[in-house]
């Protein structure tokens, strides 16, 4: 009978999802829990596993389409009765929409315990001799059979026992068995790596088995540069990446792979702005009940420069350059548990107060995990601030799909030469990383000069 595949709910405030990619074509055979399609609900991009084994009968929602949650997106013709987990369980409500843990749960739909006894149908008749033990494995994957991002780990009873006895996290082992399964050999290698530091290790091989290569092609971002044996040595602790960390990793690798980065460095004299800010600070903070920071000054400078150089406020799609009509500034916010880039929308329409309010609001909500999906979408340019942590300058990676990102170093008093005299000025290094496919050095430096001029000749009131 046909099993309905639905768009799962990937977070409390998420009511729709976009099918980004079908991993199977109609007519393809699919195993239960095998990745079937990819969805995107803003911050969370996820592979959705098949709720049943069978043949993909029909795709109802094409790639690129956005549909409400619970919409039937495909039908799977399953032999025998409908398994209990035909519909992925909705995500347990959580305070936030981008919380990685919630996403991980949603990716591994499991039947609710209360549904099990009554709804469990008689087992389907095994198709002759081809049914294997792994297919007949119980539905309820316990925690140790699921990776931190919710993907099911294929292993065996023996592998799970060895992992348990040796305190090995199976999520950290790459399987070389059929279909990427973690085999006895793999787990023994991991155990050997964990206990024997005197082992003489083979020289680094450029690649592993075909299965390993396939796995790394799928997750290029999470590929290891060296074979596992050369990574696990001495004393160590294994920490599985959070979903957020994995997404950041994927994004960074993708960005470096797609965009040829060029870096330009300039410096700006912030003395004038430092005075403006110092003079206005008390009144501003008293009147508006929020902090006055340097960030809105930089945002304003960027907005003006972006207006003059629209090629920097763009995206690349194939051979098209998409010049954005709005200036939406992504602002990197460091969190204890990672990094997020909320977006200050339509910055070109905001006055100074609006900029500061928007920046503070986004940063606060980022730290409180209260960002909505739309808060992290549709940036057209980004700013990161290594100076927050004392960095003199940084060379950031472009936040896709932007073509440039500005790095702001620490504002420091430095001796500088002005009109053949040495003066003490508040200086800042500005770095621009840009995508050389569409932005050339000439454009970048003019952009930087424009921003620098704006900062050095600040004339706008701030209160």
């Amino acid at each position, binding site marked *: 009978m046909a099993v309905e595949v639905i768009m799962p709910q990937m977070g409390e405030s998420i009511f729709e999802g976009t099918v980004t990619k079908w991993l199977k074509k109609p007519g393809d055979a699919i195993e239960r829990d095998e990745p079937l399609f990819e969805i995107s609900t803003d911050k969370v991009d996820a592979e959705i596993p098949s709720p049943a084994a069978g043949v993909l009968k029909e795709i109802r929602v094409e790639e690129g389409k956005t549909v409400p949650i619970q919409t039937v997106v495909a039908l799977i013709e399953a032999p025998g009765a409908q398994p209990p987990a035909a519909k992925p369980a909705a995500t347990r409500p959580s305070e936030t929409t981008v919380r990685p843990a919630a996403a991980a749960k949603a990716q591994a739909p499991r039947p609710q315990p209360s549904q099990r006894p009554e709804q469990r149908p008689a087992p389907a008749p095994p198709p002759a001799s081809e049914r294997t033990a792994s297919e007949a494995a119980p539905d309820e994957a316990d925690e140790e059979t699921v990776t931190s991002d919710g993907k099911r780990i294929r292993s065996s*009873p023996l592998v799970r026992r060895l992992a348990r006895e040796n305190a090995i996290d199976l999520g950290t082992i790459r399987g070389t068995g059929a279909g990427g399964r973690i085999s006895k050999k793999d787990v023994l290698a991991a155990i050997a790596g964990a206990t024997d530091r005197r082992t003489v290790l083979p020289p680094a091989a450029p690649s592993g088995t075909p299965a390993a290569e396939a796995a790394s092609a799928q997750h290029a971002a999470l590929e290891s540069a060296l074979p596992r044996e050369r990574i696990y040595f001495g004393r160590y602790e294994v920490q599985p990446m959070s979903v957020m960390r994995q997404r950041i990793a994927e994004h960074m690798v993708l960005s470096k792979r797609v965009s040829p980065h060029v870096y330009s460095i300039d410096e700006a004299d912030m003395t004038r702005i430092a005075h403006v800010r110092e003079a206005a600070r008390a009144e501003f903070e008293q009147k508006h009940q929020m902090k006055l920071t340097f960030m809105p000054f930089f945002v304003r400078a960027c907005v003006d420069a972006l207006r003059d150089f629209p090629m920097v406020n763009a995206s690349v799609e194939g051979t098209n350059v998409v010049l954005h009509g709005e200036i939406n500034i992504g602002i990197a916010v460091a969190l204890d548990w990672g990094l997020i880039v909320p977006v200050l929308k339509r910055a070109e329409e905001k006055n100074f107060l609006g900029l500061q309010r928007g920046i503070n609001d986004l940063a606060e909500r980022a730290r409180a995990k209260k960002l909505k999906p739309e808060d992290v979408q549709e940036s057209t340019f980004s700013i990161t601030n290594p100076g927050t942590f004392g960095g003199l300058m940084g060379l950031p990676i472009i936040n896709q799909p932007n073509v440039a990102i500005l790095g702001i170093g620490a504002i420091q008093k430095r001796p500088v030469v002005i009109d053949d005299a040495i003066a003490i000025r508040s200086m800042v290094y500005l770095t621009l990383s840009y995508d050389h496919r569409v932005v050339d050095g000439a454009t970048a430096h003019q952009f930087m000069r424009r921003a620098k001029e704006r900062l050095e000749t600040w004339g706008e009131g701030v209160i």
Partner: protein
Amino acid sequence: MIAMPPVTYLDAIRQALVEEMDRDPAVLLMGEDIGVYGGAFKATAGLLERFGWERVIDTPISETAIVGAAVGMSYLGLRPVAEMQFIDFIACTFNQITNFVAKSHYRWGAPVPIVIRGPAGGGVHGSAFHSANPEMYFVHTPGLKVVYPATAYDAKGLLKSAIRDNNPVLFFEHKFLYRRIKEELPEKDYTVPIGQAIVRRPGRDLSIVTYAAMVHASLEAAEQLAREGIEAEVVDLRTLLPLDRETIIESVRRTSKLLVVHEDTRTGGIAGEIAALVTESAFEDLDGPIRRVTSLDTPVPFSPPLEEHFLPNAARIAEAARDLARY
């Protein structure tokens, strides 16, 4: 010491009969055409001349009568060895064996020290009435012992143990092996204990548990696999009832993967029993699904190409083993 010539599986059986009849006057033989003719496969050739008609008895064509008479003789202190001309015909005396022989000691405290032996198995184009492997009917019957040797050494040693055993023993002889395999046997009296499997070939990658003619097919497959870098352990069960659970479990604990091979048909074959045993006792030692290579669920075909298709062989065993090793 003079080296003895190699002995065939069939001659080993005859030697066991002769030696046991020499050793114990209570041992006697009965069956269809076993005396004057010397048996359909000549297993008892020359024994009538040697032991006389009172100890080598040609019977009417009635398996029920043969087994019934054997039970009566055993109650009177004799140790008869009854031959089924082809093991297929054991079905005719199914009631005697399962209801009477198997339960006698349980019901009345009356042991039945008889052996029922006969040629079993296919591969010789014997068709559907002369190729059967009916061992599992009897493995499913508490009170019996079921033995099915794969080598000349075991055939002799196990038949001697069967004759000396105070329980009824069904002794299956694989007719394909009768004259195809031979080996030198010890001159001295020896027995092979019933209920003990043996590792024919050690290996680390998977266990192939099998018996009878399939031991040889499995060893051939293991040779091929070794050339490919897969080390298969081959376990010869030798006795199906009582089953040597320890040897099976120990082997699976070593290799973590199990392939059961038998010439018997698939459904209800001992592979299913062994698979259940291993999942019950060694689930957490398994690194892959338990696989079976068996003959098909049909009568044994007469047509040679069809029989070839029906029976497992080394190539099919190797294929399943490769699949399992890769798993």
